């Protein structure tokens, strides 16, 4: 059930769940995609006459992807503890489709997720998030 309260309306399409590969022992990697239609509410005010998808909403797309593909059965309940780092590399415009590749690394009381976002015209952003598992502090 995607979080109800979010500045991004677009649904998260799961292309690959975050499943650890027992043979290689590689960290779980999930892949998702979203299409950011012109009707996304944020475009109206960001900015009038010059719609450009806000950087923080790219972080939200990674966050929503993480909530949707979190490892574990049942799926882990994740609380966003920090945006460890984020770099914005290219702009996203109405109608663009973005693909998010996230690598999950277990840390003491949760997960660190390193995500790369690519858009229609190449790299868009690099985002690293830190999650606690369990309810918010």
């Amino acid at each position, binding site marked *: 059930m995607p*979080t*109800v*309260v*979010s*500045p991004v309306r677009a649904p998260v399409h799961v292309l690959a769940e975050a499943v650890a590969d027992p043979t290689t022992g590689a960290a779980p990697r999930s892949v998702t995609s979203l299409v950011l239609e*012109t009707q996304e*509410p*944020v*475009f*109206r*005010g*960001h*900015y*009038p*006459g*010059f*719609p*450009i998808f*806000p*950087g*923080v*909403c790219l*972080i*939200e797309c990674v*966050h929503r992807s993480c909530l949707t593909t979190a490892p574990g059965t049942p799926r882990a309940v994740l609380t*966003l*503890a*920090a*945006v*460890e*780092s*984020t*770099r*914005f590399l290219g*702009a996203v*415009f*109405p*109608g*663009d489709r973005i693909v998010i590749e996230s690598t999950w690394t277990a840390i003491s009381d949760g997960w660190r997720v390193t995500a790369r976002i690519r858009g*229609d*015209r190449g790299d868009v952003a690099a985002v690293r998030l830190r999650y606690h598992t369990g*309810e*918010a*502090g």
Partner: protein
Amino acid sequence: MTSTWTVAHRLPHRYPMLLVDRVVTAVPGSEIVALKAVTTNEPWYAEVSGDARDGDLAYPAVLLMESWAQSAGILAASRSSDGDPLSGDVMLFGGATEVRFLHPVLPGDVLEHRVRVVRLLSDTMIFEGECLVAGRPVMTVERMVMAFRPAQTLRPAPSTTSDSGSPAGTQED
């Protein structure tokens, strides 16, 4: 006490992404304290059903970041005198490092953003600071980078994949 007019005058952002209500104090090029009231009347709460629990009403963490960044943006915009935020330059969120979310924020809370300039350059600014609710830190920002870039450098090159000539939504002004 600076009026909301100044906020809208300083920033190109508009509803629903104008996330600063009032500037309390500002020392141009140095620091700012600004307020934003969180309400269920924001579009992100539109689909919340009547039986939503308190925890479901937590304000999106990324919007805490955006609201804080816009307070920093007002500080940055105070450097350019012409005031028209979109006159040639667009203020872009360049990046952030170690933004921590300490406690959930709920409708009814008033965000008090405290932003300090770490470094001020001709086309880039670096900030640090925190966001308080009722005097308690709910978010801390180790570093945020904002860049001023000419608006036209951001126009999308006609994307090869889409068949239509110029991508939807971009006006040639």
